[in-house]
Each structure stands twice: as structure tokens, then as C-alpha cells.
């Protein structure tokens, strides 16, 4: 016993407790709450990383009740990777948010559409969300997943509406509706599985090897529900508005972390529970993912608003995650470990790169009080750190070496070649070029010689550092691929 069970409980409790502290209001309460959540998440992920590396997959039954009555935790390398990613991005976002809401907005709350409300409620909501996210990654049974997923969805929708504009209210409401209906579909699937097998623990269900009419119907229902929450094409309609209107740290959380929460469950279902389901199923997921890559990228090229462009890029990048499925389960073959490593690596590196971009874009749009893409050319001179962060994040997203995105692209391509699925290889190559195109559409303003725009508002240094730190990590993520891949292969398919 390495204390992994204690850390697991703390990973959910500490952010929630932090939320309560932060709810007391005032700068210090918020800082203490955020620090508590960030510190415990960071330490907890490291502790679990060590435990998993030493002991393999961890299983804990809380309250001493074992399955199926008690709360069952199951932690493998994939869980730890997601926890660590959440801790990393979450820590940076927390730091950033203290500058964004406390120092910046109260002075300008008339012009900027999230003033006191955001300052007061962002931290508690985000910490609640953080606890729920950690809960998702630790859960070992389906019902637990449902509860944490629902809490996550409610908090996330509330984060969108922290802005008081009509756009934000409407986008948040639309997101909430999609999220709630998605949860209901998921819960129906859970009920059907329970009706069939009488168990909820993921491992027991996996052992039962679900197949046949009802369990497949359950899988379909759950997948549709989760795909809506993950904004998989064509259920992505709610995402661009929701992610674009949220306050910058909120956008970063939503795009980098929240959609990954529901994606994580999709992976657990398709990879662990159903062992790939049917070939037709994984190809269908892949086709939707491929459509998302193309459609999302093309929409990016048409955007004039910086934040909407980044949001559409999330739609495109999430597509790659679903392209993983047909590569992971080739026709008649065994699970392809390269596809697994590449897909999960993409999820991780997208989270880091995308949050860096949203945070940097937040600094820039606040600094010039404009969100149009050309307006940032003035900020390249005034906020060089933020611009650098945005650029590096963009390059990380586009998959230039040695970023994590490059490693992911390489692995996914290799799995496509290994399994002879050439169409996917072409898609990956074309998608990569489209990504470069829309990243450059923004970056070329760095090379334009424009005068700094009027009405420039300075930005607290810690905001710039938070974004730049994430951007640097995203670009250097590829240099530590051996360790990260070793982690995500722990307990993964074929590993």
C-alpha cells in the first residue's frame, strides 16, 4: 500500500473543499482554495503515477464495501495520465484566473462582459469541476461515472454563463441542454447494462464480455450521449459558441479538459468494456471523427474572431481522438498499440496546447479589448510573451517537432500504415496541413509591422507566464514521449 487510496480520495475531496473555501469570497479565500486544489492534484497525480508504475493497475473499494455496492476506484496508466494532464493545465489556469478576474476585470467590468460575477464564482465552479473531473478518471464503476459526469456538466455550463451577455447565457443554456440529455442517454445505457448483467463495475462488465442486442443498444445510447458532450461531429453545434464566449480561463478548461472527460468514458466503454465493439462501430466513430477534422478545420479558416477560431479548432482536434478507434481495432486484427499511444498522446498534447492558446488569446483580447484576429497584430509588440505562447501553442497543435502533437501524429500515422488503413493516413496528413493553415492564418500577423493599437491595457505578468509555461510544455512534450507512453500503456489495450 503506497497511500494511493488516500490520494485518490483527496483528489476528489480537496478541490471540492477548495470550492467551499473559495465560495467564501475575497481574494485570499479564492487563492487558498485554488492553491489547495492545485497542490493536492499535482501531488496526488505524482503519487498515483509512482504507485501505478510500481504496482500496476490499482483498485480500491471505498468504505470497505467492495463491488458492486461500494464506490469502486480503478486507476491505470490512462487514468493517471489524464489526472496529471488535468493537474498541469488546471494549475496554470488557476494561476492565470487570479490575474484575469482579480487584478484585471474589476477595473474594467463595464466594458468586459464578466466582471464581479466571474471574479466571485469562477474559482468555486472551476474547483467543483476539477473535483468531478478527477472523479471521472478515478471511477471504477458506471454509476460513479454518471454522477461525476453530471456534476462536471452542470459546473461547466455554469462556467460558460459567467459572462453576462446574451450570447453567453444562450450558449451556456444550449450547452446545458445537450449535456443533460447526453447524461440521460448515458444513464439509460447504464440501466440497460445493469439490467442485463447485474453489475456496474467496469472490470466485472469487461469480464462478462458484453454482447448481444441489449448491451449493444446500451453502448449505442451511451456513445451518442457522450459524443454529444464531447462535441463529436455532427453533434458539435453547441461547442464553438460555448467555448468562445466563456471567460478566457473558462474557455481553456472547457476545450482542454471538460471534453476530454466525456471522451475518457467513451474510451473506457469501447476499449475496455466492449473490446472494440464491432468493426462497423469503430469505423463509424472514425468516419465521424474524420468529418470533424475536415469540417472543423475548414470552419476555422472562415472565422474572424480569435476565440471562435480556437474553439472550432477544438472540434477538429477532437476528431483525431475518434479517428483513433478504427486504427486501434483494425479489421480482424489485434489492438494496435501505436494507435492507442498516439490517440491518448494527442488528447494530452491537445489539452496543453489548446489551453495555452486560449489563455494567451485571453490576455491579448483583454489587452486590446478586441477579439478580431487582425487586432492581435498590435499585441505582438506589446505582449511578446503572450504572442509567443500563442504561437508555440499553435505550433504544438499543428504538430511540428518536437511537440507532443508531432509524436501523436507520427504514432497515429504509423498505426494506419501498420494496419494498412491508407485512407486514414491520407486523412491524417490532410488534417495536419489544414491545421497548419489555420494556425498560420493567425501567426502571420506576428510578421506584420503594425503599430500597437490604441487603448492598450497592461496584463498581469502571471497571466503571461501561465500561458507561456503551458506553451513551452506543449512544444517540449515530445521529448519525454518514452516515459509518457510507458505510462499510458500501463493497463492499456495490448499492453
Amino acid at each position, binding site marked *: 500500500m503506497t497511500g494511493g487510496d488516500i490520494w485518490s480520495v483527496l483528489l476528489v475531496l480537496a478541490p471540492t473543499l477548495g470550492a467551499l473555501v473559495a465560495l467564501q469570497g475575497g481574494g485570499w479565500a479564492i487563492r487558498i482554495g485554488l492553491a489547495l486544489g492545485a497542490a493536492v492534484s499535482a501531488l496526488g497525480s505524482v503519487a498515483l503515477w509512482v504507485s501505478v508504475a510500481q504496482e500496476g493497475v490499482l483498485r480500491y473499494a471505498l468504505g470497505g464495501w467492495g463491488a458492486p455496492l461500494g464506490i469502486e476506484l480503478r486507476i491505470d496508466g490512462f487514468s493517471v495520465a489524464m489526472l496529471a494532464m488535468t493537474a498541469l493545465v488546471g494549475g496554470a489556469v488557476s494561476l492565470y484566473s487570479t490575474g484575469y478576474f482579480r487584478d484585471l476585470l474589476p477595473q474594467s467590468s463595464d466594458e468586459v462582459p464578466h466582471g464581479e460575477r466571474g471574479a466571485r464564482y469562477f474559482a468555486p465552479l472551476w474547483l467543483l469541476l476539477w473535483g468531478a473531473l478527477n472523479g471521472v478518471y478515478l471511477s471504477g464503476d458506471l454509476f460513479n461515472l454518471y454522477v461525476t459526469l453530471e456534476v462536471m456538466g452542470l459546473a461547466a455550463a455554469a462556467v460558460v454563463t459567467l459572462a453576462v451577455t446574451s450570447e453567453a447565457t*444562450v450558449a451556456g443554456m*444550449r450547452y446545458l441542454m445537450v449535456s443533460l440529455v447526453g447524461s*440521460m442517454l448515458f*444513464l439509460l445505457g447504464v440501466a440497460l447494462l*445493469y439490467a442485463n448483467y447485474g453489475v456496474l463495475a467496469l472490470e466485472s462488465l469487461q469480464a462478462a464480455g458484453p454482447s448481444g442486442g441489449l448491451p449493444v443498444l446500451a453502448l449505442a445510447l451511451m456513445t451518442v450521449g457522450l459524443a454529444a458532450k464531447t462535441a463529436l461531429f455532427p453533434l458539435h453545434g453547441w461547442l464553438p459558441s460555448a467555448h468562445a464566449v466563456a471567460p478566457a480561463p473558462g474557455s481553456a478548461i472547457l476545450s482542454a479538459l471538460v471534453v476530454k472527460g466525456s471522451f475518457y468514458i467513451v474510451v473506457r466503454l469501447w476499449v475496455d468494456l466492449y473490446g472494440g465493439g464491432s468493426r462497423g462501430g469503430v469505423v463509424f466513430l472514425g468516419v465521424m471523427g474524420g468529418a470533424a477534422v475536415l469540417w472543423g478545420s475548414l470552419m476555422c479558416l472562415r472565422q474572424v474572431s480569435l476565440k471562435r477560431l480556437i474553439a472550432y479548432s477544438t472540434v477538429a482536434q477532437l476528431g483525431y481522438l475518434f479517428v483513433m478507434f478504427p486504427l486501434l481495432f483494425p479489421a480482424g486484427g489485434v489492438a494496435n498499440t501505436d494507435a492507442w499511444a498516439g490517440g491518448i498522446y494527442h488528447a494530452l498534447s491537445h489539452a496543453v496546447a489548446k489551453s495555452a492558446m486560449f489563455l494567451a488569446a485571453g490576455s491579448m483580447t483583454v489587452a486590446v479589448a478586441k477579439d478580431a484576429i487582425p487586432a492581435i497584430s498590435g499585441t505582438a509588440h506589446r505582449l511578446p510573451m503572450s504572442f509567443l505562447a500563442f504561437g508555440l501553442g499553435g505550433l504544438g497543435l499543428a504538430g511540428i517537432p518536437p511537440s507532443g502533437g508531432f509524436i501523436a501524429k507520427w504514432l497515429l500515422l504509423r498505426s494506419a500504415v501498420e494496419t494498412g488503413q491508407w485512407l486514414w493516413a491520407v486523412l491524417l496528413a490532410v488534417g495536419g496541413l489544414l491545421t497548419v493553415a489555420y494556425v498560420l492564418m493567425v501567426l502571420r500577423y506576428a510578421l506584420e509591422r503594425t503599430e500597437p493599437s490604441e487603448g492598450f491595457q497592461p496584463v498581469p505578468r502571471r497571466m503571461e507566464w501561465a500561458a507561456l509555461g503551458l506553451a513551452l510544455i506543449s512544444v517540449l512534450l515530445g521529448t519525454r514521449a518514452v516515459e509518457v507512453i510507458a505510462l499510458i500503456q500501463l493497463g492499456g489495450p495490448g499492453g
Partner: protein
Amino acid sequence: MTALGLYTFAGAGLFALGFWAVAVRAHLVWKVFAINIMGSGVFLILLSTPARGDPAQADPVPQAMVLTGIVVAVAATAVALGMALRVVARTGRPFLPEEGDLETRE
């Protein structure tokens, strides 16, 4: 047909009814009603299909789940109605505008 089977089918019917309503009713409050109905449909299915052990004996697992589910549903309803009222306060109407009506403005 057993009594329990009857409730299972009723649960499925309620879920379908709710799903249909959430899709066709544009009024936000009715969407929240519909989601509640969907939830109760799932609860009915959970409680009326004793998959474990003796069918005559009450199964504590789904009961625990449904209890949790009811609490979650109340919380979700509170949040959703609160947000629906904010939509009304901002736009003056209890509907979601078509995508693109509001957002594409610069």
C-alpha cells in the same frame, strides 16, 4: 406479462416521451420537464429489472442508485431552471434562438 415487466416498458415509454418532447418543444421550461421525465423513465427501468439474486428480494444497489439519481436530478433541475430564467432576463423570451442569430455578431 409480469408486473415488473410492465414497469420496465413504462420506463422505456417515459424515456422516449421525454426524448421526443425535449427535441420538439422549444420552450426551455418544458425541456427541463422533459429531461426530468426521461430521468424517471430510467429510474423505473433500474428498479423494475432485478438482475441480481432472488427477484422477490429487493435489490439495494439500484435503490441506492435511484436515490442518488433523484438528488442529482433535483440539482440539475435547479441549475437548468435558473439558467432558463437568465435567458429570459437577457433575451426576453424563454426560447433558444437559432444558432447564429446572436453569436456571429462581432
